[in-house]
């Protein structure tokens, strides 16, 4: 486990690569977290972060010149939703052999205004049905995906396929069970109001857990499922899935700057999680 420091950046090879671009080679350093890239002083057209152990594509400073990122053979699972603000001229992104699993995890790439070339080879995402059409539909500026040109026929086909909202909801349902992104305040308020009159549950801890799950759910179907679980009395199975949600929600909430009340709730949740899963809490602390 090596930290990406300014010293490491200065010691790494700087050169004009085979396609005549200024490149910084940070390959094979066992870097776990992207940080301190401001030390490059926006001097590079290409940054090569291959053969490291990066988990999340984040902490990128504003790099106006950067056009190519090579992140082969890492453990990328998530991408910062606002990455487009910091890399306005990024046109080539190579994420070969990483761990992107769900289709919604590439949605943040839509914020990159000039992304023309993308490689997601050897990720589990490529095995999802309609993977290629989903990516083409979301990333409008894309020209080459996985070393195949994006043709106009494919764009039209993708547009037709995702014209109905049902398909989109189906795709987004699967990741919602394992991971939730930011929610809108109106939805959360409405759900909270609905939940208040029906406070009937055996244990206060379970009440808190169910409330948190409902607050963080994205669709009405999720809320209906939780209510049905309460009525059917299948608490053990639900608790397992709920605890999974809690863990991921904590990770998500830590990365987002939430208000003070939510932070106190997060602290409580993290304590519960630590009691149940030591390994996960260790990895969370490292994050």
């Amino acid at each position, binding site marked *: 486990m090596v930290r990406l420091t300014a010293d490491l950046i200065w010691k790494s090879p700087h050169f004009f*690569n*085979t396609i005549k671009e200024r490149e910084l080679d940070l390959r094979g350093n066992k870097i776990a977290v992207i940080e301190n890239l401001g030390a490059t002083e926006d001097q590079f057209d290409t940054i*090569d972060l*291959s053969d490291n152990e990066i988990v999340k594509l984040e902490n990128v400073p504003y790099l106006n010149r950067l056009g190519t990122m*090579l992140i082969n053979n890492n453990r990328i699972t998530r991408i910062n939703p606002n990455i487009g603000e910091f890399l306005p001229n990024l046109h080539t992104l190579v994420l070969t052999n990483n761990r992107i699993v769900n289709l919604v995890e590439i949605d943040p790439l839509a914020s990159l205004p000039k992304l023309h070339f993308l*490689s997601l080879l050897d990720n589990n995402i490529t095995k999802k049905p309609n993977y290629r059409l989903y990516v083409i539909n979301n990333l409008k500026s894309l020209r*080459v995906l996985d*070393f*195949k*040109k994006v043709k106009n026929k494919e764009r039209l086909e993708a547009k037709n396929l995702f014209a109905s909202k049902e398909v989109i909801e189906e795709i987004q349902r699967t990741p919602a069970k394992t991971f939730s992104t930011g929610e809108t305040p109106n939805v959360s308020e409405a759900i909270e109001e609905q939940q208040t009159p029906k406070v009937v549950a055996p244990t206060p801890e379970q009440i808190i857990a169910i409330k948190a799950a409902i607050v963080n759910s994205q669709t009405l179907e999720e809320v209906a499922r939780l209510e049905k679980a309460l009525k059917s009395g299948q608490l053990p199975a639900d608790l397992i899935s709920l605890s999974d949600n809690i863990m991921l929600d904590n990770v998500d909430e830590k990365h987002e700057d939430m208000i003070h009340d939510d932070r106190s709730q997060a602290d409580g949740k993290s304590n519960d999680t630590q009691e149940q899963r030591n390994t996960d809490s260790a990895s969370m602390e490292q994050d």
Partner: protein
Amino acid sequence: MSEVNATPEIPQSNTIYINNLNEKIKIDELKKSLNAVFTQFGKILEVLAFKTLKHKGQAWVVFEDASSASNALRQMQGFPFYDKPMRIQYAKTKSDIIAKADGTFVPREKRKRHDDKAKKRKDQHDANLAGMGLNPAYAGAYGAAPAIAYPGGAKSMVPEAPAPPNNILFIQNLPNDSTPMMLQMLFLQYPGFKEVRMVETKPGIAFVEYGDEMQSTVAMQTLQGFKITPQNPMLITYAKK
């Protein structure tokens, strides 16, 4: 089977040779894409691709490590790259960049290539020069005719009707000191020439005889308006029969 035979014949190398590439891709984009697809196997030192007829649809990728080249060859064999399956093998010769690194680079080979290239350019330059040489003659011939024809015609053709074709040419407007030998030297260069006759009592005119009318016509058209001296352009017509 043929592939199995082919593989052992080429020894392992830092460089892989790829063919059956999509030829519609521009060279810059091709290099960029090859760099992007092979960078997962190790550091790439060089990507070579050319658009000449002999090297279309082919490329060489030079890795820093031979093991990277081996992995690339094994894993990317047949990979659909821009809708065409790649065909990969080791390069037959050591790349220049590798030869320079380990000191076995031979400068003579490079100089020879350079000389051939320079020689090629010189030949092309000569060809251009030859092309330019043709223009002045043509322009001169074209420019001379209308300027001279008008005053000549106005001068003496009006009183007389033009003579019918004849194998004997009638030359007028000659300088007074011209001699038969001088005219013979001039008209001899055209086929069919027979003789020059000048009239002693009338300086400035002459008769030139050719074998037939076709030959005399050629000489007449070519030498019409020829200036033996700057102020004496020749006026040539067919002699009266």
